[in-house]
């Protein structure tokens, strides 16, 4: 998490936050009319961007994703859900680049996210799905807690709505953008100081494991708790009725959300060169 705060010292990273947020918002706004759950979410091809922005621009992509989503909400859906949306969209870009560091067995991880091998594409798909679920978890938990939308319905809709574009559209975008961003020296690892970039290591692996368990545990456990009080997945979740704001869902998904946030702080930092 250190990188998330220290990045603000770099002017280029500040500019990237603004550009990422602007791009994300500009792509979200035209689809505000394609509503899936009024006032809460809509069809979002823009979901292709956060994972790409996270892998390319690291913390700047994560802040850009969170701010961009908030700006998108300014166009007709600013409400209490925007607070959870801010956290969720931050995680949508943050989780993929955090987990990417820990793919592969070597201390170098899986390498650059250039998607030039099947293994890297598979890793991209995995981090996209986990990122999408990490976005859905705090939003669905928060709105269920407030008694507004059932956890199982909202959680499943957001996960699908986020992961499909981030995989189908994100991979070609990444393949085209990566070489150019690298050539322009705009990868976050090229902009940040070396001692502020987390590396693969014991703590990072623990952090990644806790993060993955929190996201999957929070979502799957939350679904199971939600089914227990009569909720259902996707739109059938609205048809099924069920208890919204139940203690079981609040606790299980809440622990998952807390674990997701706590795990962000567990990472290996490089030794400072004297």
């Amino acid at each position, binding site marked *: 998490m250190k990188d998330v705060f220290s990045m603000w010292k770099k002017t280029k990273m500040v*500019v990237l936050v603004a550009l990422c947020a602007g791009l994300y*918002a500009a792509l979200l706004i035209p689809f505000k*009319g394609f509503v899936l759950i009024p006032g809460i979410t809509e069809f979002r091809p823009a979901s292709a961007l956060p994972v790409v922005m996270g892998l390319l621009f690291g913390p700047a992509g994560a802040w850009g994703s969170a701010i961009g989503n908030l*700006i998108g909400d300014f*166009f*007709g859906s600013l409400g209490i859900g925007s607070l959870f949306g801010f956290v969720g969209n931050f995680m949508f870009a943050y989780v993929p680049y955090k987990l990417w560091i820990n793919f592969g067995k070597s201390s170098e991880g899986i390498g650059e996210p250039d998607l030039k091998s099947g293994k890297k594409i598979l890793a991209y798909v995995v981090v996209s799905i986990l990122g999408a679920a990490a976005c859905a978890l705090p939003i669905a938990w928060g709105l269920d807690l407030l008694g507004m939308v059932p956890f199982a319905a909202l959680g499943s809709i957001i996960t699908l709505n986020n992961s499909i574009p981030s995989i189908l559209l994100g991979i070609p975008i990444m393949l085209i953008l990566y070489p*150019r961003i690298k050539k322009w*020296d705009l990868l976050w690892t090229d902009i940040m100081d070396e001692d502020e970039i987390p590396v693969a290591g014991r703590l990072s692996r623990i952090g990644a494991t806790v993060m993955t368990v929190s996201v999957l545990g929070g979502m799957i456990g939350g679904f199971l708790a939600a089914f227990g009080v009569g909720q259902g997945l996707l739109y059938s979740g609205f048809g099924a009725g069920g208890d919204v704001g139940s203690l079981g869902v609040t606790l299980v998904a809440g622990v998952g959300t807390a674990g997701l946030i706590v795990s962000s702080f567990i990472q290996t930092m490089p030794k400072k060169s004297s």
Partner: protein
Amino acid sequence: MDMFLYVDVESFVHRLDPRTKLLLMFLSFAVGVMFNNILILTAALALVVAYGALGRSLSNLKRIRVVLVMITLFSLVIWSIARPSGNRFLVFSVDGVLYGLMIAVKTNLMIVAGMIFLSTTKIEEIAQGLVKLKIPYRAAFAFSTAIRLVPMIVATSYTIIQAQKSRGLDLDSGNLIEKIRKYVPLMIPTLISVIRGTNIFSMALESKGFGYSDDRSNLLEIRMGGKDYAMMTAGLLILAAAVVLKVDHSIYDAWASIFPWGDFA
């Protein structure tokens, strides 16, 4: 095309400090979240609308009417089918209709409160308000720059679309999937043209002394005045009344008994 909701008129609410307006918006959210009673939520919505009228911003209701109507219809239909109830007409339950109405009023209350804030507060005022609330200047700068970039990015993509159309790209024919497939490649030049400007943008900022000093002076100075404290006090008093209503069962029950079918506490 004016993409933003800001209404450029003179009004009492426009003259309030952005921090006051931000607090009033969050207080509206809090009251909306606290209750599951149609009557109380409708009273809160009426207060919010009156505040919007004071800010001469209700013309924007027209711009977001589709969202408000969709929220209402969606809630009514979904909850009238989903809500378990014995008293049904075809597949719809009467209890579900009222529950859906309550959810619709609650969601619309928050959306309208958000709309009023954006209709009466300029982007630079929001950014300045965030700085005064101790949000780091650089984060507030990124936020306000991003908002300003949105129309520019939309204009860039529009130019790219027009350029491709003039070269014979047919974007109008085909079904929705085919149209999406045609539009997606057009995202790439937009992304590249925007990101390509990063280096020049940061050099321009640094050449103007961006980040030189933490003590910045601003062209726009905002200051809390008497009317701000009055409005904040009024808002906090309303919240306090709402808390009393929530915790004192005798008062709440008296309210709820006026329209018992609309109470889902």
